[in-house]
């Protein structure tokens, strides 16, 4: 911002800037360089992990908009993903549709489903709504499995590598760039939303519906909008998933996937964009982290049987621990750490009674 010296802001535009200090600009630049240069140094497998994390981040950000910002609990996230993925699968399988057709179609299906699930949200609150979305999940999965069974796709429907603008996306490297860019774009949109009129209206509804209505916010409309926005992005993520994995199959969208996404925003820190990103990374990488730790402790030996259930259990345990002891999630820890670093070596802590 040309007018800002870095510390004093002279316009409201400057005050609203996302990246306003030199340190932040440097950090952002470093992150961009790191992500761009990673393929040169990282192994294909590490790249695959980052790619997976990026895709998970898109899903987590979409869920965060719905649950974190607008306060509408959804247990149907995997259902939306599944709908997007199967839209691609069915269109590619039946009419060989190109991505420029399938992706908008997936978004449209997402919007329709979001509306369908959103309408009951106008009458339902909290748990009842969650149950409605859960029921939707099972219905979507049923429809998908009917399709899969009827057409005899035993191992799932194949989705060949897509071609956009003459480029055929098939290598791990291409997908790395595509998905990291997708995640970056979603992050930017999500950050912008939180500071815009619509995002604020959602947070108002989340905190107190009556107060929101008193400010002229059309609560019903905005709830519906949150469902539609979230489900469009989720369905798109599902569509990209289908292309990236080059197949779709019902088994990939079990209820456990929903739990994983909820865990991401819970562990990351509900309602925070950074939290959704941290949570997505954490949940995606956790099993591999456990592998690495066990590998380091017991090199050479074949992994013991108990390790595998343990990886699954660690996820459940961590989710419980975060819920019990760190409701603000990883973002909360990050903020405390930042305060600690900034203040170090001083040991300033707010008075206990002040909390």
């Amino acid at each position, binding site marked *: 911002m040309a007018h800002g010296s870095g510390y004093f802001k002279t316009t409201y*535009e400057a005050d609203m800037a996302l990246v306003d200090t030199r340190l932040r600009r440097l950090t952002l630049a470093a992150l961009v360089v790191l992500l761009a240069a990673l393929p040169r140094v990282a192994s294909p497998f590490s790249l695959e992990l980052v790619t997976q994390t990026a895709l998970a981040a898109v899903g987590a950000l979409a869920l965060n908009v719905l649950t974190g910002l607008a306060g509408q609990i959804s247990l149907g996230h995997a259902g939306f993903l599944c709908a997007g993925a199967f839209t691609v699968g069915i269109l590619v399988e039946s009419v060989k549709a190109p991505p420029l057709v399938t992706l908008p179609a997936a978004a449209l299906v997402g919007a329709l489903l979001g509306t369908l699930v959103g309408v009951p949200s106008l009458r339902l609150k909290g748990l009842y709504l969650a149950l409605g979305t859960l029921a939707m999940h099972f219905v979507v999965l049923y429809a998908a499995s009917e399709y899969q069974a009827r057409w005899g796709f035993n191992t799932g429907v194949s989705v060949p590598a897509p071609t956009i603008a003459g480029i055929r996306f098939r290598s791990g490297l291409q997908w790395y760039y595509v998905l990291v860019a997708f995640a970056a774009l979603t992050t930017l949109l999500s950050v912008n939303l939180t500071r815009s009129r*619509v995002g*604020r209206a959602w*947070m108002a509804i989340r905190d107190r519906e009556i107060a929101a209505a008193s400010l*002229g916010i059309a609560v019903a409309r905005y709830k519906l909008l949150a469902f539609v926005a979230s489900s469009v992005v989720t369905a798109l993520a599902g569509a990209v998933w289908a292309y990236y994995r080059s197949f779709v199959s019902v088994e990939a969208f079990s209820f456990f996937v929903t739990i994983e996404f909820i865990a991401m925003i819970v562990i990351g820190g509900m309602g925070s964009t950074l939290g959704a990103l941290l949570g997505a990374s954490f949940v995606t990488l956790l099993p591999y982290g456990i592998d690495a730790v066990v590998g380091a402790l017991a090199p050479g030996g074949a992994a013991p049987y108990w390790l595998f259930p343990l990886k699954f259990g660690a996820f459940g345990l961590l989710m419980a621990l975060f819920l019990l002891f760190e409701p603000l999630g990883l973002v909360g820890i990050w903020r405390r750490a930042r305060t600690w670093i900034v203040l170090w070596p001083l040991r300033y802590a707010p008075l206990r009674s002040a909390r």
Partner: protein
Amino acid sequence: MSAGAALEVERLSVAFRGLQALNGVSVRASAGEITALVGPNGAGKTTLLNAVGGFCAITTGSIRLDGAPIHGLPSHRIAARGVGRAFQFVELFRHMTVLDNLMLGRHLHMRAGLLAGAVFFGRSRREQAAHRARVEAVIEFLELERYRRDAVDSLPFGVQKLCGVARALAMEPRLLVLDEPSSGMSREEKEDFARFLLRIKHELGTTVLWVEHDLEMVADLADRVTVLDFGQVIAEGPPAEALSAPQVVEAYLGRQP
């Protein structure tokens, strides 16, 4: 800013599960004036405000704003007609900053939709900046500058109440509805608040419907007073007259032996 609107409540009745909260109440708030609503606890003051704001269903009667009926409309439509409300128990969005709370007050005046907000570039960005300027004006008006970036739940209760008023003011309402704004404020805060109330009336010309416990303040500031007891109007008129009526004294102090 737009001039104040006149509110007419005619023979309004509200019942909850057989309990008659309001019974044929008529209240008028003339344009540009401060109309106070007083009465003992449980008299039905907040219920009346809820009915005006569309937060509870009415049994019979009518509510008109500048002659147009608003009863039966959903709350957000009533807000769009120009009714701004500050709540008794604040009802701010506690995790947000004062600034964000006030920006929410600008909701009705802003246009940016979902996509514009997500892109946050060009027009939607300029719109945001323009409304930020209006919010800053409100912050300055109510002298909240130093709390601008604080999360609401970290503020003292009196300041929170003032923020509630600020948020309602940011809506640029034609009718400002205040529910016991001064309760929980310190002596000094109350004095400031009295000043703000007069400035709202004189500088902004907004009609104010004001529920208040502090009868001294009402006597000093209100143009007209309506006294409620057990869901019925027991006195109405200029403060000096209405507050000294025998039935009002009785309602507050109990029947004298």
